[in-house]
C-alpha cells in the first residue's frame, strides 16, 4: 500500500507519549478531506508493541524499527530511518506530535525531503486541495495561517489540540519491520547516561494544573526554622507553600505549575514554569494561586478551558482571564478546597 499520511509515534521504551495518539486524530481529519490511508511509524527499543497498539487507534498500516542503533533516542539515526520510509512510501503528509523529539525529527526530515516544516499547529484544514494550518505565534498573542508549497507536507501538532481517537482493541494488524540506515560506526553521538525524572503528571499532557506564583512564599502563619538567612527563609516558606499546592494537585491528579517569578526566585525548578519562556499549556482546568498574571504568564496558559484564580490582590490581571476568582488568602482557601474536593471526588 502507499501510506499517503504517515504519523510519527513518539515513544519511550515501549510506551507512547499520549500526544502521539492525538496526531492520528489529526491525520484522520486530513484523510477525510484528502483521501488516502493513515500509517504510523515507531522507532526505538520496544517499538513493535507500540506499532501494534497504533492499529487500535485507527492506523491502517504500521512500521517500526527496533534496531540496536535506535535503542536510545539519537536525532541522526532516527531521522535516517524516517526519511527513507517516507520516500519509499511516497508519503505526502508527515505528521508528528510537538514533543522534543517530534519537533526535532520534523525539522530534520523536512530538509532531507526537500520541503519545509510547519510546527506546533492547533488546527488543520484543506482548501483547494492544499493543507492550511493554523498556529499560534508570539506565544499565542497572534494566530497565523501557514501553507507549504512543497511536498511532502511536514507538520507537528500541538499537544492537546487534537483529540485522540477512541482506542478499539478489536482493530489490529501486523506491523512491518524497517531496517536501520546508518551503521553504528557512522553515528557520531553516544548516549552515556539516562535518568527518568521523578514521577508526577507532566505539565503539557495535564488535564488539570495547579500553579503557584510569587505569593506562595507569603504565608504569615509560618515561622521558618532558626538559623536561616532572609533568602533561605523565603525559599523555605515558598517550599511549604508548594506543599499545599502539591496536596491539591494530588487530589485532582494535576500537574504542578509555577510562574516565572516563582522559578526565578528559586522556589521551584524551571521544569514547572508556565509562560512564554516556559511551557505553553492548555488544560481543562488551571488553578492559579498567588499569581498576578503577567502578560508572559498569560501567554502560556490563556487557552486553558476553565481558569480559577486565587489572589489577595483584587486588581491582579489574572482575574480578567478567570472564570472563577477568589480574592483572599490562598493559605486558608487552598487547604479547605483540598479537603472539600477530596471528599466530593470520593478519595
Amino acid at each position, binding site marked *: 500500500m502507499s501510506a499517503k499520511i504517515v504519523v510519527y509515534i513518539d515513544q519511550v521504551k515501549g510506551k507512547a507519549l499520549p500526544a502521539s495518539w492525538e496526531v492520528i486524530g489529526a491525520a484522520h481529519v486530513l484523510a477525510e478531506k484528502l483521501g488516502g490511508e493513515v500509517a504510523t511509524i515507531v522507532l526505538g527499543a520496544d517499538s513493535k508493541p507500540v506499532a501494534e497498539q497504533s492499529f487500535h487507534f485507527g492506523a491502517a498500516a504500521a512500521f517500526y524499527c527496533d534496531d540496536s542503533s535506535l535503542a536510545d533516542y539519537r536525532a541522526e539515526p532516527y531521522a535516517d530511518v524516517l526519511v527513507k520510509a517516507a520516500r519509499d512510501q511516497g508519503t505526502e503528509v508527515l505528521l508528528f506530535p510537538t514533543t522534543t523529539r517530534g519537533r526535532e525529527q*520534523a525539522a*530534520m526530515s523536512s530538509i532531507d525531503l526537500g520541503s519545509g516544516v510547519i510546527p506546533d499547529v492547533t488546527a488543520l484544514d484543506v482548501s483547494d486541495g492544499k493543507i492550511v494550518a493554523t498556529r499560534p*505565534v508570539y506565544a499565542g498573542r497572534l494566530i497565523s495561517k501557514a*501553507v507549504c508549497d512543497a511536498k511532502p507536507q511536514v507538520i507537528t501538532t500541538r499537544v492537546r489540540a487534537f483529540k485522540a481517537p477512541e482506542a478499539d482493541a478489536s482493530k489490529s494488524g501486523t506491523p512491518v519491520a524497517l531496517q536501520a540506515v546508518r551503521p553504528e560506526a557512522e553515528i557520531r553521538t553516544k548516549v552515556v547516561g*539516562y535518568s527518568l525524572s521523578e514521577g508526577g503528571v507532566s505539565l503539557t499532557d495535564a488535564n488539570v494544573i495547579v500553579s503557584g506564583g510569587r505569593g506562595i512564599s507569603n504565608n504569615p502563619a509560618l515561622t521558618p526554622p532558626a538559623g536561616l538567612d532572609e533568602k533561605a527563609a523565603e525559599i523555605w516558606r515558598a517550599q511549604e507553600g508548594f506543599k499545599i499546592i502539591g496536596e491539591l494537585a494530588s487530589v485532582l491528579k494535576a500537574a504542578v505549575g509555577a510562574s516565572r517569578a516563582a522559578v526565578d526566585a528559586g522556589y521551584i525548578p524551571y521544569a514547572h514554569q508556565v509562560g512564554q519562556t516556559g511551557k505553553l499549556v492548555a488544560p481543562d*482546568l488551571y488553578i492559579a494561586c498567588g499569581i498576578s498574571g*503577567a502578560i508572559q504568564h498569560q501567554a502560556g496558559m490563556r487557552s486553558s478551558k*476553565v481558569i480559577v484564580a486565587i489572589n489577595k490582590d483584587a486588581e491582579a490581571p489574572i482575574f480578567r482571564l478567570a472564570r*472563577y476568582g477568589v480574592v483572599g488568602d490562598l493559605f486558608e482557601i487552598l487547604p479547605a*478546597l483540598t479537603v472539600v474536593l477530596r471528599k466530593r471526588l470520593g478519595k
Partner: protein
Amino acid sequence: MNIVVCIKQVPDSAAKMAVEGGQISWGEAPLVLNPWDEFAIEAALQLIEAGGGDLTVVSVGSESAKEALKTALAMGCTQAILVSDPALQGADSQASAHVLAGVIKKVGNVEAAFFGKQAIDGDMGVTAAQTARLLGWPMLGLVASIKVEGGKLQVEKSLEEGRQVVECQLPAVVSVSKDIGEPRYPSFMGIRKASRATIPTWDLAEIGVGAPTSVVHWPEVLNPPVREVKTEIITGGSAQEIAEKLADKILEEKVF
C-alpha cells in the same frame, strides 16, 4: 573551540502584539535580542572562557538587528556578523537554515553552532535542527549543561520523560535550554566596546550561496478570538464556605 551563535532580533516579550490593517504591530515595545538566545550565548561564553577560542554571533535580519548583535557583543562575544539581503525577505526557517549553514562554513574552523530554543516571534524552534541536517553535523537539542572533554562535547539533554547524557564528536549543532542558568548582563566595559564595534554586513554573494527558495508561507495573521470570560467572584464568610462554593463550581465544569 570556535563557536558560532545564531541569534534573532524580536519584539520584547512584554509587547502588546496586534494585527492592524493586515500588518503585525508591537506598539511602542523595543526590538530586543531573543530571550532564548541569551542562554545560548551564555553557554558558549562559558566554554570559550574555560577553553579559549572565538565566539562569533550571527543574525539574519535587517539593519536594525545590529542592535541585538551589539547586545551579544556587550555580553562578551568576540565578533558579530549581520546577514542581510533583499532576497531573504520573507525567508522561511529552512531558507534561513541554508543561509546560516553557509555562514558557518564561510566563518571557517567552527567546531560548534549554538542556537536558542526558539525565537519568541514565530515560535518555530526548528532552525537549529534544520541547519544541523544541512551541515551534516549531529544535532544536540535542548541542552541543560555542556562540557568539553578530550575534544568531545558532553551534554545533558532535557526530554519529556527525563534527561539523557550524550557524548558527541565535534563539530556539532547545539540548542540550549533555560536550564543552563541565568545569562549574564552586559558589563559596562562590554557595552562601551560594543557601541564602538563596526559590524560587517554580508549578503548572499559574499557568503557564496544562491537565494534559497522559501516554501512555507503565511497567507494570514490574525488577532486571536477575544476570550469571552465573565468572571464570577466567589465570596463567603469563611474559607470553608468559599471552598465549598468554589468546589461546586469546579465540579459543575465537569473536567474530571
